[in-house]
């Protein structure tokens, strides 16, 4: 008996199955400055901001930063 199986291609779990179906439009150009230089810097900056905000929030939590 054959029954349909839904594959969610937007889910990270199903990511490996996507590799064999990948069209050229879904690939990042390896020589793109935007993707190879700019975005890693942006992601790093976002991560740093996240850590700073977590430290500030933790500071509020433990009372180092005045709670208002």
């Amino acid at each position, binding site marked *: 008996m054959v029954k349909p199986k839904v594959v969610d291609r937007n889910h990270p779990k199903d990511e490996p199955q996507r590799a064999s179906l990948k069209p050229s439009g879904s690939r990042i150009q390896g020589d793109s400055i935007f993707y190879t230089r700019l975005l890693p810097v942006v992601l790093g900056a976002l991560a740093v901001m996240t850590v700073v905000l977590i430290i500030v*929030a933790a500071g509020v939590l433990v009372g180092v930063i005045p709670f208002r």
Partner: protein
Amino acid sequence: MNLARILPFVSTIVMLAFTVSVFRRWLERRKAHFLFWSIGLAMFGAGSFAEAYFAVAGWSPLVFFIWYLFGAALNAGWIGHGSLLLFARKRWAHVVTVLLIAGSLFAGYLMLSVMPLLDASTFDRALPISEQYRTIMPSVSEGATVRLSTPFFNIYGLVTLVGMAIWSAWLFLRKQVLPNRVLGNVLIATGALSIGLASTLTRLGVGAYLYLGELIAALLMYAGFVMAGAPAPQTEASSVTETAAAD
């Protein structure tokens, strides 16, 4: 009508559309992360609506309850929990889900207990509620222990929502696939950080940028969600049906 009155209205409309999109996605796919995202986004929208209500209609204890509990305390945690469910092992996810629900109920109880202590005599509807809630609500030592719960939910939401978005973007970038996912996750992380930054400023006594931060967050996260979920060319559609042998 000044910006403090307009921004929450616009944020509410954006969040309503965003919530409906995510909830419809949950109805289609029945994945738990879509449900938690839509609940968290609905809380975010309720908070924005409460701000708009204060600016137009004036003081209401019920609306203040909604604004603080859902808009200031819980929404980030619930949205972030949706992101966690995408990656965490089921057993751990269930444990954290129970903790989140229990913590939210407890925060609701603490909020209920502080309601009789509110002093709205100084409320001014010309000012954003984020700039005057400290005078309406007593301090922690005077009984508003619910205020201690907000950093827990917000740190959890920030770590999970922004952390998972940055992590996803980095994975796709490293594999050099799906640029729409990379950009979509960058937009989600940036949007979440903008509200995190505005909330932190509010916590430090500068509440003037909260509404702007909310609107930026709503717009960027919605754009990121749409971009990340957009079908890519050819067979990269969001869902396909395959046949698999069973039995």
